[in-house]
């Protein structure tokens, strides 16, 4: 589904990713782990098409088509979803309006009919209950005045409603209490099917107590230094990133 070949990325004049190769297939959950500054978030953002990241070399393809020249909205409508590390506040834009616009944009790109308000309210109600998001938040502007945990739950809510083919979670676990962490884990597990895939970018192993990844990759200084199965994450937790660094 996602194919990354020899990807070199820079922002400004700083080289951040230095030759990433990664292949994610349907039905898989991959975890990208690594210390601060290793390029994890850059990888997540460059797949989503954040404009300030420049691809110097290599390419990213999704379902066998290169997406390097696509805008973020085009990528989103192909089924790529990024759960943000720091979701932004959108003052004055009601949650309902935002999520419905987003959902309708996706349906429209697939030449499908937009949801009616009634249909939308129904699915929004169901998913909000699943995620455990306070209905009062739904009435507010997007992320405005939300706590860190509420923002992350909001990302999970949008993920559940948009049903992406590829979900990328950018440090969704950072700053979460244990209950919220559990919700995130459950959301991912619930959404995982044989038709979609998940890429979890994280600093810590703790989210992986709830989610069992198919593969774990360790990113150090812009390169994948080691890949393995779920056990790798547990070893890392015990031995730290210095262990990987000493191997290279």
């Amino acid at each position, binding site marked *: 589904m996602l194919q990354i070949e020899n990807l070199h990325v820079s922002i400004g004049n700083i080289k951040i990713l230095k030759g990433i190769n990664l292949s994610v297939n349907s039905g898989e959950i991959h975890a990208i782990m690594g210390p601060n500054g290793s390029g994890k978030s850059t990888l997540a953002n460059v797949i*989503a*098409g*954040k*404009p*300030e990241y420049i691809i110097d070399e290599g390419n990213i393809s999704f379902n066998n088509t290169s997406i390097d020249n696509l*805008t*973020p*909205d085009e*990528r*989103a*409508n192909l089924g790529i*979803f*990024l759960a*943000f590390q720091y*979701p*932004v506040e*959108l*003052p*004055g*834009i009601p949650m309902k*309006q*935002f999520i419905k*616009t*987003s959902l309708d*944009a*996706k349906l429209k*790109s697939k030449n499908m009919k937009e949801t009616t308000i009634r249909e939308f309210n129904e699915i929004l109600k169901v998913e909000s209950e699943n995620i455990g998001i306070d209905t009062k938040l739904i009435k507010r*502007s997007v992320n405005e005045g939300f706590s860190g945990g509420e923002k992350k739950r909001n990302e999970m809510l*949008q993920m559940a409603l*948009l049903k992406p083919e590829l979900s990328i979670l950018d440090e969704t676990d950072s700053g979460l209490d244990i209950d919220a962490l559990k919700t995130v884990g459950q959301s991912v597990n619930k959404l995982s099917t044989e038709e979609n895939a998940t890429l979890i970018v994280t600093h810590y192993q703790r989210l992986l107590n709830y989610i069992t990844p198919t593969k774990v990759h360790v990113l150090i200084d812009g390169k994948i230094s080691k890949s393995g199965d779920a056990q790798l994450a547990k070893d890392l937790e015990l031995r730290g990133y210095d262990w990987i660094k000493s191997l290279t």
Partner: protein
Amino acid sequence: MSQKTISRKSNISSDYKWGFVSDVNSEIAPKGLSEDIIRMISKKKNEPEFLLNSRLKAYEYWKKQKDEEPDWAMIDYESIDYNDIHYYAAPIKQPKLDSLEDADPELIETFNKLGIPLEEQKKLAGVAVDAIFDSVSVATTYKKTLEDAGVIFCSISEAAQKHPELLEKYYGSVVPYSDNFFASLNSAVFSDGSFVYVPKNTKCPMELMTYFRINAEETGQFERTLIIADEGSYVSYLEGCTAPMRKTHQLHAAVVELVALDNAEIKYSTLQNWYPGDSEGKGGVYNFVTKRAKALGNNSKISWTQVETGSAITWKYPSVILQGDNSSGEFYSVALTNNKQQADTGTKMIHIGKNTKSTIVAKGISAGNSNNTYRGLVQILPTAANSTNFTQCDSLLIGDQCGAHTVPYIEVRNNSAKMEHEASTSKVSDDQLFYCMQRGISEEEAHYMIINGFCRGIFKELPFEFAMEANQLLRVSLEGAVG
């Protein structure tokens, strides 16, 4: 059927007469201003003595300050030749075109984007309208509803004939002829406008609209409006139209006066979308307006809401004199400038009575090469014990060639007053755009969404249908500036 629909239909009623074209010249005064011209205007309108005298006094005053056109606003324009203006033209509209196909295609495209019904498009573009759409019956129904409630809603010329006592009592009581250069000019030569009187303890049974007027004739460039809400009454008045009106005159100097007596409330909403000129700033209306309200009675309330997107120059400060005890004044504004437009707009809140309260929320959006200034005065006089003001001014910049300025004046002469002032300047951030786009929303759509979010607090003060139109209006006005 909604009120809006009714208004649009009644708007079609035109007093256009075939054959008038030949003697049109006799209905236009020669260019320039003199005492004779003023006497002629007053005579044509068969005005009572006091109005003529008021016009003449205003003219004398204006002549004296003729070289003192105000220059303190942050606007820049070629000087106006006041001798090159016709100060009187018969209020008769004459279609200039045979069909919509003859109209400017760009204009028609804009009409379609705004969702303006075909028949109204014809009227706005100056096309002769089929007599079938002269829906006199609709106008009559609405007129009857107002009459039953005792509400007077007519042109100010008609009021001069039928209700001279009300006019004499209140005309010029809020904006005297000596108020400012443009108000003096207006007081000397005003063409026409609306007159509203809501009797005691009456809630006006419908929202009144200017383009819903019975005598829906061209009001000319010197519009004059007077609204009086008697004790315990309420009225909501809507002015303007989302359609880009290609006004024939470049200078518009209007005066609007509102008076609210004890326990009365007036809500005045404006959508202004006059021709802003082309992208180089050529053409476009100069809009110099004096709008002021007197919250005269105890517990009276005035609320101004404006969405200003048109005109090359906007010079406008809808104000409230809070004279009655416990009276309150509100000003909610969205001013958008694009290309070479210039807006210097804001409000004045003059606190005189005890426990008076004012709220100012001003949102400025600048795009293109435009300049957008908020200018506001909050004055607490010694008599205004326990008064409060809350002011919030937010500016949003689109692109890096535009300007946003905030010029607040605060004068407090009673130390029991509570004042709050908040101001912010922001840009649509790249992070906000990326977030929206990551959710599948196009860049252009994301911009509109964020800008509408910025204006939300103001739009919710507008009557519902007006708010919907305001959303569309921002979109059309910003075309080419975003995405």
